[in-house]
């Protein structure tokens, strides 16, 4: 009898230990991602038209007399910080949209946010003269239209129980509407206007400076703790609305709050840089393959891998074909897709 009880306890302990090992692995992978991000940032800081050794980096950053000081602090550093913020935000928003829409194919742009932000950017390009202050209006208008489309999705789905299908359909309808409006303005516009619009849709970090960074940082980082707090609820949503409700989740409220926060983050990421595709879809999936889909780990780790992806892509984009700079949106796709395929094919483990 006592032997049977001991065996039971042993089995119980065994299950616990196996699970804890899995959790430790997730912590480890998260830490490795942070280290990879730091290393990528160092490489990005030292490469470019005036290459620096790692030993030169510190004096170039701190000593204003150093020949590379201006390049590093005024051009490269803000660009790197912006790349990290944008990748962090888009990937974070991607995870949130995938969770609340219960759709692995969702991205920050699924609900029409990309096209509405794009249309927001089109308006100042079309109506304001090409002067120095116009970029601020482009960013403000892109932000405004992002939030407008988020609230339209919210309002329509509220009328019908806040289900994920209603949200997706509303988002798709909005996407077509704003694409059509953008096309209309492109059709009416001059050559310069059209090329500026196209450039905006490619996404670029070339306009990122120390002025824009605080604004983006606030919009991307402030919602983060609130999003992270909802992580256990996102986990429950994965098995369906009814199941989540049965486990005590206020599904409608979580979905609404998450939609607003994630739209805000997306707006912060794209209003200065344009539509950078692919990151918000693929960085979450890469991370999911690395450490599973427990959102308490997935949210911060995806944000990290998104930052790595955008930073690496931008660094490649400005160095491989220097002095030409390849638009960021194109490079993210070029670098991310092969890696994504590699993981997709190689994935053999049972728990992703």
């Amino acid at each position: 009898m006592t032997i049977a009880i001991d065996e039971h306890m042993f089995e119980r302990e065994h299950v616990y230990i196996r699970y804890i090992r899995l959790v430790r692995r997730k912590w480890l992978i998260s830490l490795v991602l942070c280290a990879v991000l730091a290393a990528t940032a160092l490489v990005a800081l030292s490469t470019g038209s005036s290459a620096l050794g790692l030993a030169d980096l510190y004096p170039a950053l701190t000593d204003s007399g150093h020949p590379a000081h201006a390049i590093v602090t005024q051009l490269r550093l803000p660009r790197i910080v912006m790349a990290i913020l944008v990748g962090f935000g888009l990937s974070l928003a991607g995870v949130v949209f995938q969770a609340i829409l219960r759709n692995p194919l969702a991205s920050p742009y699924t609900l029409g946010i990309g096209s509405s932000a794009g249309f927001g950017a089109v308006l100042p390009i079309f109506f304001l003269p090409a002067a120095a202050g116009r970029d601020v209006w482009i960013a403000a208008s892109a932000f405004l239209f992002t939030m407008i489309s988020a609230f339209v999705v919210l309002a329509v789905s509220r009328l019908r129980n806040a289900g994920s299908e209603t949200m997706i359909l509303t988002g798709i309808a909005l996407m077509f509407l704003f694409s059509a409006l953008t096309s209309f303005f492109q059709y009416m516009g001059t050559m310069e206007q059209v090329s500026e619009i196209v450039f905006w849709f490619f996404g670029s970090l070339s306009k990122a400076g120390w002025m824009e960074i605080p604004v983006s940082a606030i919009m991307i980082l402030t919602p983060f703790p609130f999003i992270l707090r909802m992580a256990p609820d996102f986990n429950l949503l994965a098995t369906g609305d009814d199941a989540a409700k049965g486990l005590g989740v206020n599904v409608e409220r979580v979905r609404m709050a998450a939609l607003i926060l994630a739209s805000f983050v997306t707006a912060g990421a794209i209003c200065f840089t344009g539509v950078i595709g692919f990151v918000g879809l693929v960085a979450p999936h890469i991370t999911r393959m690395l450490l599973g889909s427990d959102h308490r780990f997935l949210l911060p780790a995806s944000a990290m891998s998104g930052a790595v992806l955008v930073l690496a892509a931008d660094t490649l984009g400005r160095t491989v074909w220097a002095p030409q700079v390849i638009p960021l949106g194109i490079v993210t796709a070029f670098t991310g897709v092969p890696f994504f395929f590699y993981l997709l094919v190689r994935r053999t483990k049972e728990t992703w």
Partner: protein
Amino acid sequence: MLEIKGLTFGYNGRSVLTDIGFCLKQGEIITVAGPNGTGKSSLLKCITRINDIGKGQITIHGKDTRTMSRMALARHLGYVPQSVQSRFPMTVFDAVLMGRRPHMSWRPSRRDMDIVSEILTDLNLVDLAVTDFERLSGGQKQKVLLARALAQDADFLVLDEPTSSLDLKHQIDVMRLIRNLAATRNVGVIMAMHDLNLAARFSDRVLMLCNGKIHGLGEPWDVIHEESIRDVYGVDAMIGESNGVRFVLPGH
């Protein structure tokens, strides 16, 4: 005690349930039977408050469920929906750990994880603990979902067709498990089911629904007979007996 009084429910102007009233004691198993579309799932969803009830009242230990928060309700009531499909990979352990959500804050405690390990051991799911939920067979999934509902540490379980997609052996396995849990953990179970033989064999009482009204409620063979089956399903049936065990043979 779970008590339902004068429950009426409908949507889009169509009435689904009218004047339902009964009690479920802890340790008791009630099966809800009846034709498709007669309101079985709706009744279960009213109890879990996934559906907002129209008229009437549902109380748990004397407390109106409408005055409770969802979290508080989830501490009293475990729910297993008809089909659960995870869109994202998760281990069996994680799936069962979700059942601790009503009791935990952001981070599961050692106690939460001990409870999950304990349940997995009890239900012989040890070997599957770190397997992906979506790789399980239908029977295994159903067991994991039961484990998850058990982790909620609730006094009552609401199960929507727990055997609907299972083969013969797994049907019996799962029903024995439910019977066993009701007895050992003193959990009250209400479940929807189509198979009248299983219902009669494993439940204390059967509630026969017909067009949203209670057609009969009582000991299984008091409710299941040729007449009631003809009334409710419009099918002729024979009640037989062999070696002292009764069975129903529909379509005879």
